[in-house]
């Protein structure tokens, strides 16, 4: 037996060295793809790689990016969050509407409070009641959209005096020439990445997502962990609402509709598995940026904005497929 074991390990070792470069490329495949895309677009459009264009793309991608940071944590913890789009509508409507009624500070505080409350409801139902996250957040998507409409009475809301409020800082401001949304995005991404990689909390989330039973059998409070991921997700949505509300200074009732899909698309494209227990914020950032640059590049080349959806369709499936094919060492499944 021992000899078989040792043989197995020896082969595993030698294989590992040989496949080193290949592994690296496949692990970083999405990064390579990203660079090829950038290069290709830059051939056709001089503007594409200009500093101002890049900053514009990153700024535009920052709202989706901020939400995606939170949802990535939920996914690493082994769950899904489809309610972020509705939550974004809710939080944006709330902060814009309250701005003129109680002032920006009160509006922001209340908005964060209620957004986190919704996150807590999600977290309670999924973490403590152990319900299926897909259906719960689907139900919440519908319920929150209803709440927004009830709250606003179906009317759009806006801020009356748009040029006179420091609230504009979050969406329209610049610090040292960098747009505030980008700074917020970067800060959140770095903080959450550090938390996930270098803290015991992050380790627990990975464990819970990787194998919930084993996590519980290791004395980890799984319910709390899952609960907390939805608070993080809600916090990120609140930050995104801050940016969005401040940028548009007004809000339609369904401003966040469909964001949950774009966020998921970015996360999947980055290479984070929906199964949980794996993934990283870096990957998500790359995924979100790819979507952003493809959109921008196609526009610069003169294609209408909706062509990016067709491209997204193809590359999402390709990205996941190639990843799978690499793992099973064959392109197609064999069953009939």
């Amino acid at each position, binding site marked *: 037996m021992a000899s078989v074991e040792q043989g197995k390990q020896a082969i595993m070792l030698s294989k590992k060295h040989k496949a080193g470069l290949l592994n690296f490329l496949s692990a970083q495949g999405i990064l390579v793809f990203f660079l090829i895309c950038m290069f290709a677009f830059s051939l056709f459009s001089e503007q594409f790689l200009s500093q101002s264009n890049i900053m514009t793309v990153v700024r535009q991608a920052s709202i989706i990016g901020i939400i995606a940071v939170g949802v990535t944590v939920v996914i690493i913890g082994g769950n899904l969050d489809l309610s972020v789009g509705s939550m974004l509508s809710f939080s944006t409507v709330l902060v814009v509407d309250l701005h003129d009624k109680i002032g920006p500070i009160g509006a922001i505080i209340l908005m964060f409070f209620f957004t986190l409350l919704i996150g807590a409801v999600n977290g309670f139902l999924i973490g403590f009641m152990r319900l299926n996250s897909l259906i719960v957040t689907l139900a919440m998507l519908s319920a929150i959209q209803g709440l927004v409409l009830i709250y606003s009475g179906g009317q759009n809301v806006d801020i009356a005096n748009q040029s006179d409020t420091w609230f504009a800082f979050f969406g329209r401001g610049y610090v040292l020439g960098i747009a505030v949304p980008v700074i917020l995005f970067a800060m959140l991404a770095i903080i959450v990445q550090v938390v996930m990689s270098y803290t015991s909390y992050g380790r627990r989330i990975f464990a819970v997502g990787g194998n919930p039973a084993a996590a519980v059998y290791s004395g980890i409070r799984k319910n709390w962990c899952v609960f907390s991921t939805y608070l993080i997700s809600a916090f990120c949505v609140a930050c995104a609402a801050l940016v969005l509300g401040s940028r548009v200074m007004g809000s339609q009732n369904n401003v966040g509709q469909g964001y949950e899909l774009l966020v998921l698309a970015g996360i999947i494209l980055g290479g984070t598995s929906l199964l949980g227990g794996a993934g990283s914020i870096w990957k998500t950032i790359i995924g979100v940026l790819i979507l952003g640059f493809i959109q921008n590049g196609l526009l610069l080349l003169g294609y209408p904005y909706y062509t990016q959806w067709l491209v997204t369709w193809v590359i*999402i499936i390709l990205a*996941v497929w190639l990843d799978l094919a690499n793992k099973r060492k064959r392109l197609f499944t064999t069953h009939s």
Partner: protein
Amino acid sequence: MINMKDFLKGSGFIQPIWVFVIVITIFFSFMSEYFLSIGNLSNILVQTSTIGLIALGMTYVMINGNIDLSVGAVLGLSASLSVGLQDYGITIAVIAALASGLVLGAINGLVVWKTGVNAFIVTLGAMIGVRGLIFVYTEEQSFYATNFAFSDFGTASIGPFPVLALIFLICTLVMHLVLKKTGHGRNTFAVGGNPEAALDAGIRIGRHMMINFIIVGFFAALAGVLLATQMGAATPNLGRDYELWTITAVVLGGTKLTGGYGSITGTLGGVLAIGILRNGMNLMQVPAFYVLVILGVILISVLIIDQRLNVHASKGVSI
């Protein structure tokens, strides 16, 4: 009512969703005299036929252990095609519209089968991409039916029965029988309930999956055509959120996301529950958005009830 647990699990004679349907029917009939009139009831059937048709296909896909998020976009494309191609004649337009559903379903199914990528991801991609196809085709324009035969169809009746309601009910019956009585229907359960065993038994699980994706694609397209006849028009954003409504209806009807469990009768109940709630609350002049909240609450309640029953049934540690 002999055994509460068996009853709620649906192993009894009547499914719990149907009890709910009966309860809200009684409730609304007290709240509004008009509610139980033939006109209103067929109205409910017509209103629910769109979601209902898609839900028939979705039930198959979900029993099979998959999910299809692209149905709303497929519906939108088919509606646009059926109106936009009317210069070539209604028949050609409708055939092209239905064919688009079959083809997109086949693509989804083939990709899920051959690449092994999770259906959630494949159809999420399709949901985004097919919406792109609609915009490419329509160039963001809404189409209006010029041929009155087309829009007349949406409001036509045979005797007191609206044609759309009849189509929905006939499709429901057929799909119920196919699921219960045919080899494909039974193998759909086998693949969803235990894929490994199905594979070992020589069941062609890939083919069954693909057929079910084609079925749901077809029904989404059919729903799109019928919706276009009702409206006499098609907008590029038609069908947004329909995947959510459909999945809600199917889950309310007792079909499990994990596969291997579900029924067309349950789905019919789920579809009617949503339709009756919307219609009844409309009659009571409750704003439509309250329905959204109520549906969310009901969906979560169903999950909780379902889970309570299963926790007590198994003796394992609940993780």
